[in-house]
Structure formats: structure tokens, C-alpha cells
């Protein structure tokens, strides 16, 4: 968990995988600062 603590993170989620907001919640709970988060559609 220390891996993300106090780190700034950029999140690109996948519509058919793990979407941005879900990764965002995980990253925040690990102490990261989310500077950008979006979900993209690759199909």
C-alpha cells in the first residue's frame, strides 16, 4: 500500500475492464492523490 502513499497518480480506466472511478477509489484508499482520472473506450 505504501507504493501509492502521497504519490500523484494519473488514471486511465477501461470501459470493458476496470473503469476510472473504481481505480480512483482504490488509489485514494491507498493514500494517493488523483490528479487525473478518465475512462476510455477501446472498442
Amino acid at each position: 500500500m505504501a507504493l501509492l502513499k502521497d504519490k500523484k497518480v494519473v488514471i486511465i480506466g477501461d470501459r470493458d475492464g476496470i473503469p476510472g472511478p473504481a481505480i480512483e477509489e482504490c488509489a485514494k484508499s491507498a493514500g494517493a492523490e488523483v490528479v487525473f482520472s478518465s475512462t476510455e473506450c477501446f472498442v
Partner: protein
Amino acid sequence: MGGYAVLKGSSYTLAITPDMVLRSGTTQTTEKAVNPESEYLKELPKHLRSYEDAVSYLPNQVYIGNKTPEDLAAEEFPWYDKKTEGKREGKYGEIMPQDEFIGLIQICDVFDLVKLEKAFAKETGKKLAAHGLIGVERAAILDKNEDTQEEIAKLVKEEHAEPLYHDGKLVGAVKRAHDIDVNLSAHVMLENLVTKASSVLSLLHLVKTTGIDPSEIEYVIDCCEEACGDMNQRGGGNFAKAAAEVAGLVNATGSDARGFCAGPAHALLNAASLVKAGTFKAVAVTAGGCTAKLGMNGKDHVKKDMPILEDAIAGFSVLITADDGVSPQIRTDIVGKHTVGTGSSPQAVIGSLVTNPLDEAGLKLTDIDKFSPEMQNPDITKPAGAGDVPEANYKMIAALGVKRGEIERKAIPQFVKDHGLTGWAPTQGHIPSGVPYLGFAREDMLAGKIKRAMIIGKGSLFLGRMTNLFDGVSFVIEANDGSGAGETAGIDEGRIKELIGEAMREFAGSLLSK
């Protein structure tokens, strides 16, 4: 169980458009803008397939119904390096060559925006006149082309027209429909005419495959992902009625339903509900394809020395009618929806679309014989790093089943095999979204092979930058037990008299008993 709207039939069409891959696909147009000398742009033309190769590509033959999803699953992956016996005509539609499709675009243009080079138009006109569903009358417009290649080149160079190429040669152009309005620019007009033409082709095949009298279709819902309108109403619409006009659906009106890739599932629910309510007896849901997504994953395909597999403009149409006692019913009471409050975790998404509606109906995951979520062809998506999209959906459904105690953990691969399908649809957004399976689902239900299927549509609303939300709806289709035939026939005078008679008898009986 009776009284539901039924799935009367569906059609699926492809137009193989390699020249449009080069000039209209956004991966290519973006590359031309930011890196015009790139290796990719130089290599790309060598990776385009011939029409014959695209016809003999197994997933395309599945799309038009000549082969089945089971045939595809039995074939060793990947498929792009193998050929199957391919035919232009399929049980559900056809694979049209580019020249004829360009001709069809002109047939669909009612504002004289499409100009074709005289000799090309003459040759193509002959082919379309001989086409069983287009014919002499519709093809006659091609004979009116008088422009030379030089005149067309001038339109492109001086009048902002969008060029139309075939076999690398300039054969026509689409003019802008306004000199300032960006929503009527030549680029947008080409995009919209392509969508319209592919929808028309599918509607013509729908009439053929279902045998319905075109005048019996009362309403059409278009569910593609384009927008037509002008600068004062960018998405004013409507593609549905425009396509219905060319397809000869003289008694139909219609409207456009949108929801990114979830559009078709929303449109089918609307159509089934309109029929069940008795508002209309026969509703067609239709969509054409999009030029923008041509060659979308082309960079990865070229990098891996594969052919460009995203070389087809796809279309589909579905006919929903009142219960005929035979065709599969659309259970508009078993509907999943991703709501504003659902959340975006994969569990929440699959829960809202799959397990919640089944729970409400008292059904288990295993009561659904086949799930049809996003049916993208993995031959296209896997080399591009997007994985096997249908399989990812099935694994998530199965994982939820394990969590709920309906499936054993070790039974996940078997569940995926038994209740899943191998994807075959081109990556044209709304095209693969649940609907490619409707043709096979209907057939398998009529043959008694399966009882229930769930169609799942998912849409990336966040791409429009109006919300961060995702979206999706789903519904169950069920084999018809014949008990409800005629119940959704609606405004039948005889049945109304019968009901009034019954009510009066009951009333008289209650008076007598008092």
C-alpha cells in the same frame, strides 16, 4: 406467458470500404494531421484486404448468417490468417463491395450532394440495377451523373467537397450542404450519408428476411451513434425516417434513440414497449455504421503485420411485432438498468444489468442459456491489447455467480463456454452491442435449442463529456409458448367486443346474485 412483443426477425449487412479506411477513419485522419510522414501511413495501404478476402473472413460470414457462432468457436484462433468458403449473400444480409456502396450513398442522397464520375456511375448503376433489393428504379439516379474526374477534383480542391475513392482512384465527391455551417460540412454529410446508406441496406434486407409487407411497418427507431442536424440543432434528427423513406416504408414515422453503444438495447426496449402497449403493431429498430471507426486499431494491426480488419461499414435492422405465438418474446418485465446511483465498479455494473433483473424475476444465472453482451470480434481487439471483450464480460458474470453461490469457482470456464458466445462483430461501437446474436437466438429458440437469452447493451456516456457515468440496459428474450398469441395485437375490434361482452355478463351476474 403471453402478451409480449416478439422478435420477428433481423438483418445484418457489411460494406467493405478499404478506401474509406484510409481517408475517413479517425485513427488515420488524426495521424495525417499530427504525423503526416509516419511509417504507419506509409505501411497502411499494404495491409488493406481485397473484397474477396473480406468475404472469405469467417467472422464476416457469421455476421451475415452463413456460419454460426459455434462454427467460429470451433475454428482455431486467430482467424485473420485463414479463409472460409465465403458468399456475398447470407441468410441475414449481404457483404456489399465498395463501388456499389458508393452508388447506394448517392441513392440515399436527396439533396444532390453526391457527385460521381460518369463512367464509374454508369458501371455501378448497372450493378445496382441488377441488385435484387435495389433495382432499376432506385439505381436510375446514377445515370444522371455527367461529371468528369477533373470536375470532381475541382469540387474537392475548390469547393471543400469530401472525396470518394475506389481502388485508389477518385470516383466521386460529397459536397458541403452549407458554406458556413460545420454541421452540414462535406465531412459530416459523408459520415451521415454512409450511416444512412448502411441502415437502408439493412432495412431492405429486413423486409426480405422477415417477408413483411413494407407498408405494415409503422415506426422506425434508429440507434446509431451519429447526429444529423444543422448549426441550430446539431442532433435534430432523424435518421430513422430518412432511411425509412428510401427503404419504402411508406406508413412509418420514426425517431432516433441514442446511448453510445447501449443505443440498440435502449431502442429495442422502446420498440418492444411500443408494441406491447398496442401503440404500433410493427416497429423496426435500425442502425448504420460509421466511417470514423474504420481502421480504429489499425496501428496495432500493421505493427503485428496483420491485415486491417476494421474495413467494413456495418448495419443491422430488427423487426419487433405483436405476439404471433411463435417468435421469441421480448420480456419487457425482465429488464436490467444501470442507474445514476449504480456506481462504476465491474461488480456493480454486472449486478445492475444481469443479476438484479434475474433476481426480480426469480431466475438464476444458469436459467439464461446465452448471454449476449458486447460481441466484438477478438481477432480485432486482442492484437490491439483490448483483450477478448465478450469473454471478459462472461468471466465477470460467472465471478458474480460464484459470489452468489450459483456457480462453483472451478466451473467458471465451463459457464463461459456454455452460456457465452465467441465474438464476431466488427468494432463499430453500437453494432456489436448485444444485437448481433438476435438472428441466431431467434433461430435457436424456434428450433428448441435454447429457451432464454439475455441481451446486454453498455454505453460509454463519458466520451461525450457531459457526465462521467457509464450506462447500460439489458433484457431477456424467451422462447414463445404460444399462449399469448394475439394479446398484443391490440386494437382488434372483435376482441374489444368480446371483452365488453364478458364484462357485461359478469356485471349482470353480480346483479342477479344480489
